[in-house]
């Protein structure tokens, strides 16, 4: 297997401890659990998506396990502004605040609460199951550009997380780039549903949800590959990554770093395990691997 040499890692303006970040919404609701994931080997952590108002999220069931992935509709539960207190103990750590809003002004407001406390922002323009937020905005290039701009003017590194549930993801990636994004995160979950045949109703409280985990990996690789061909800012690959070889595959598709979420379900120590496989002293520099499957 291809292995990497672990040198300094800076992606989209954020200095990371390694190439592996904790994805948004996974064990990211409290400062303590983010600190735990950093201590368990994550090179950076993305917080739960924080919005302009506290939200309780959707009624349950919110998350079910499938054979090869997870299906969730949390409904963006978040403590809003109060979350700032959670992360005070994490100053100087590679913490990225995932934020969402319904328009550029809301994005700017939420960003203002955190801009001095985090290493970067990740704009959730991609959650497939939150009315008026996430993908409701992230499928419209003009809104993507204006929301990105509203945050990138803070000068804090601004990553934009994209939804795969669009006809052409490169169009959205270009809009984010035009709005001043410092990096693209690809991808959020695939819009999906399962029905309980015994109950004769959709299994999630919200009916529709997002598919994550191994099942979506080939779609995520495709999206990263497409974005690498059409955009000029770094890409953070996300979706179904569970092994060091998956990380290498994402990098070959064009990712400069990756985010890992669902794999935490099988193994909370997944970062340590992947790191042990991914890195060795005589490994290749990541520059030799990133995007090497193109051309």
């Amino acid at each position, binding site marked *: 297997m291809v292995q990497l040499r672990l040198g300094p890692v800076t992606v989209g303006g954020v200095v990371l401890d390694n190439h592996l970040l904790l994805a948004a919404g996974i064990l990211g609701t409290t400062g*303590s659990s*983010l600190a735990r994931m950093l201590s368990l080997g994550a090179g950076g952590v993305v917080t739960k998506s924080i919005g302009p108002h506290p939200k*309780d999220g959707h009624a349950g*069931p919110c*998350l*079910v*396990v499938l054979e090869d992935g997870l299906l969730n509709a949390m409904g963006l539960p978040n403590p809003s502004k109060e979350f700032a207190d959670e992360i005070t103990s994490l100053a100087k750590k590679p913490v990225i605040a995932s934020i969402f809003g319904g328009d550029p002004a809301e994005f700017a407001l939420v960003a203002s609460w955190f801009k001095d406390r985090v290493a970067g922002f990740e704009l959730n323009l991609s959650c497939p199951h939150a009315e008026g937020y996430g993908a409701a905005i992230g499928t419209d290039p003009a809104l993507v550009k204006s929301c990105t701009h509203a945050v990138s003017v803070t000068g804090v590194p601004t990553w934009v997380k994209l939804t795969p549930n669009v006809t052409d993801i490169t169009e959205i990636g270009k809009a984010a780039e035009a709005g001043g994004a410092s990096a693209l995160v690809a991808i959020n979950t695939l819009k999906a549903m399962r029905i309980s045949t015994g109950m004769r109703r959709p299994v999630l409280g919200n009916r529709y949800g997002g598919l994550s985990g191994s099942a979506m990996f080939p779609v995520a690789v495709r999206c990263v590959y497409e974005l690498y061909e059409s955009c000029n800012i770094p890409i953070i690959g996300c979706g179904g990554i569970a092994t060091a070889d998956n990380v290498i595959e994402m990098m070959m598709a064009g990712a400069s770093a990756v985010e890992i979420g669902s794999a935490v379900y099988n193994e*909370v120590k997944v970062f340590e395990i992947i790191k042990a496989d991914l890195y060795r002293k005589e490994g290749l520099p990541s520059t030799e691997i990133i995007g090497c499957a193109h051309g």
Partner: protein
Amino acid sequence: MDDNLPVPVSILRVKKETSLIHTFVVDRSFAFSPGQFVMVWVPGVDEIPMALSSENTITVQKAGDATSAMFNLGKGDKLGIRGPFGNGFAKGEKLLAIAGGVGAAPLLPLARADCVMTLLLGARTENELLFVDQLDECTDVLIATDDGSLGLHGFVTSLMDDLNLGIYDRIAVCGPEMMMRAVLARVEEKGIAHKTEFSLHRYMKCGLGVCGSCCIDPSGLRVCRDGPVFSGDLLLKSEFGHYMRDASGRKKPL
């Protein structure tokens, strides 16, 4: 496909334990260890964590939306069950169990597993005491009620003072958090916090160790996956007994 979607079960019978606590007997059994819980899907309402009080029962206290909706269900109605999840109580030879209110639910199967020498059972008043008969059948039960209507007049912690705690190799506790905190204070004084285990209640969305809504400070451990049973030691310098978080993740004092 080998999916883990909720298992549909039918309610066979509802047993009214007290005015606010009902036991739901379902048509399917789940292999479990005492202290493990399931996520119970009340269709159209919500999904909530519940300890298994036996392999085919859950014992539910009316608390809010979902539990109230359950109180309207009867024979033949369906629930969806995911689990069992979590760690359950550690094994021991000579156990003391301490139960407050509906906290008796996960302790009944522990007592039935024949390792509980003594069980302290508390409630506000006599007719809110849970499982008195079933527990009597399998262990030595000592009772305390807040109003003195049965047993000792006072809290279960007072019952502890009358016992020689040294004869137990482990102490398993489940009940309202204020009561559990009082127990923890008592065992800390006596220097035996490491022998105790507490089953925590926290708001849970996924039950799978993924979403983070049940994590406790300062360890960041997940009640649903690393717990719900934690050693007293670990809880001493923690949020336990001080605050918890609501559905949005905001802290709320106990």
